[in-house]
């Protein structure tokens, strides 16, 4: 199972590079493209690790300027995926990740996983944002679950917001954790891809308990929680 086909990935690569080319200085763009070539050809991860860390020094962290038709194209190519609010370093990093050769699954996993292991906050944001674009999507399930355990707000948002990977690949238990964690950390659950499609009895039960717990503690309850519980009842 895959979220999208190879052609769509190529198209997303193209759109990303189009945005990047528009905003990067000539010098930075040359640097990035040269690094991408090295990443494509190297057997080890040296260039990938270095370029991935170095990237913001060349890209800046400015917001991306995305054209409306590009936004539309992204949404068509990968349902639920949205990069409108991304920064330039995030997009460049994700684009770089798309250049990692994937012929050998083990090598591919080792390279990407190595980046996760030594990642700082903003790198984590880029890595988790790229989940729906990674090859061999099944092998990233436990990494995604690990990310949901993060306490870093931006990392959680990279997994939760406009990211079609979790809904497509997480088992029910992990999915429910994602939704609960979103409520507990006061995220905007309306930005979670697949929230209503993946409603289930277990989640609704836990949410009902959560409502009781909040009531007992004299705390407020988000209207979305009631909505989810209602919709589950209608659905099942």
């Amino acid at each position, binding site marked *: 199972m895959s979220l999208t086909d190879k052609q769509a990935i190529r198209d997303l690569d193209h759109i990303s590079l189009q945005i990047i080319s528009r905003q990067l200085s000539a010098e930075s763009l040359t640097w990035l493209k040269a690094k991408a070539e090295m990443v494509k050809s190297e057997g080890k991860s040296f260039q990938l690790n270095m370029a991935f860390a170095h990237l913001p020094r060349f890209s800046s962290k400015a917001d991306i300027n995305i054209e409306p038709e590009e936004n539309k194209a992204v949404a068509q190519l990968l349902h639920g995926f949205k990069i409108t609010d991304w920064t330039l370093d995030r997009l460049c990093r994700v684009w770089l990740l798309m250049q990692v050769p994937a012929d050998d699954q083990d090598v591919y996993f080792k390279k990407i996983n190595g980046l996760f*292991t*030594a990642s700082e906050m903003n790198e984590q944001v880029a890595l988790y944002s790229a989940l729906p674009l990674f090859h061999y999507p099944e092998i990233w399930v436990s990494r995604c679950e690990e990310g949901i355990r993060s306490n*870093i*707000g931006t990392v959680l948002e990279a997994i939760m917001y406009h990211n079609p990977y979790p809904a497509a690949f997480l088992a029910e238990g992990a999915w429910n954790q994602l939704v609960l964690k979103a409520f507990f950390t006061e995220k905007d659950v309306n930005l979670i891809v697949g929230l209503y499609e993946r409603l289930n009895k277990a989640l609704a039960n836990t949410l009902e308990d959560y409502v009781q717990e909040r009531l007992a503690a004299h705390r407020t309850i988000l209207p979305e929680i009631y909505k989810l519980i209602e919709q589950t009842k209608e659905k099942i």
Partner: protein
Amino acid sequence: MCCNDNFQERNEGEKIQTILDLNDISGMKFFDPHVHMTSRTTDDYQAMADAGIVALIEPAFWLGQPRTGVDSFTDYYSSLIGWERFRSSQFGIKHYCTIGLNSREANNEKLAEQVMEILPQFIFKEGVVGIGEIGFDDQTAAEEKYYRLQLDLALEAGLPVQIHTPHRDKKKGTQRSMDIAIEQGLAPHMVIVDHNNEETVKEVLDRGFWAAFTIYPFTKMGNERMVEVVKQYGSERVMINSAADWGISDPLAVPKTAALMKKSGISLKDIELVTYRNAITAFAQSGQIDEHDFVTVKNIDQSQKFESNSILRGGQQPRINKNSIIIS
């Protein structure tokens, strides 16, 4: 009476209730270039932000007990660029770090070799402003070996070095640290020599290095002594830090010392250099410090957007009233 068995009585006698008055320095900005936030609480972050600290550097050091495997180092370095940076941003303080193998653990050579292998993975990360804190503790051969190797790494990476000078045999240890840095080809302006005192400062400054002072009760500098140092040596290439860690230390050492300097008649310009500007100038040689980030730290390192969502989601940690017995 020396040995009071009556704890209740003793504790009552010791209880001091005063309110810290930092009005003299209100509105000033501070930079603490050496503080181990990993061992501090959120109360400290809150107090630091309130006192005007806008940015800090957390040097990698040992954790109070020796690590037994390289993965512990990986996790520690990761936490400095990850979780701790996030925690700091929640209080609006920009967090930088220096990465290195500390002198004590350099003595475990088998482990030190492995740590040297992982260091290149971390030193180029965003917000890593130097190699540190490295240098001498016991001044053993192993310490010297890994000190030199890390100086080579700093030179290659174009990063400043934050040197920990030893407690014991300090004067000679400091001289030797500088000699070795020069031998390895580092320019003095790329080296911040830390934990100076009245005995070491002259030579450090004369040789063109940055002289950092740690205001740390009992074991290092007191800030009244620091005021005298600034009066005598001026503010050029001088900076102060708290080096606050798990010991009895003070994360407000920098603003408190600024207040004391002001009371003691030191000019605002000199205070600014010693408590803010010099540290930035020294560590910005890494290319990793952008002062705009001090203002936008909340926007950059936290949620990207505040407007569309609840303040809690992206904003700062909610403030609790410490003087209320109610915890809600």
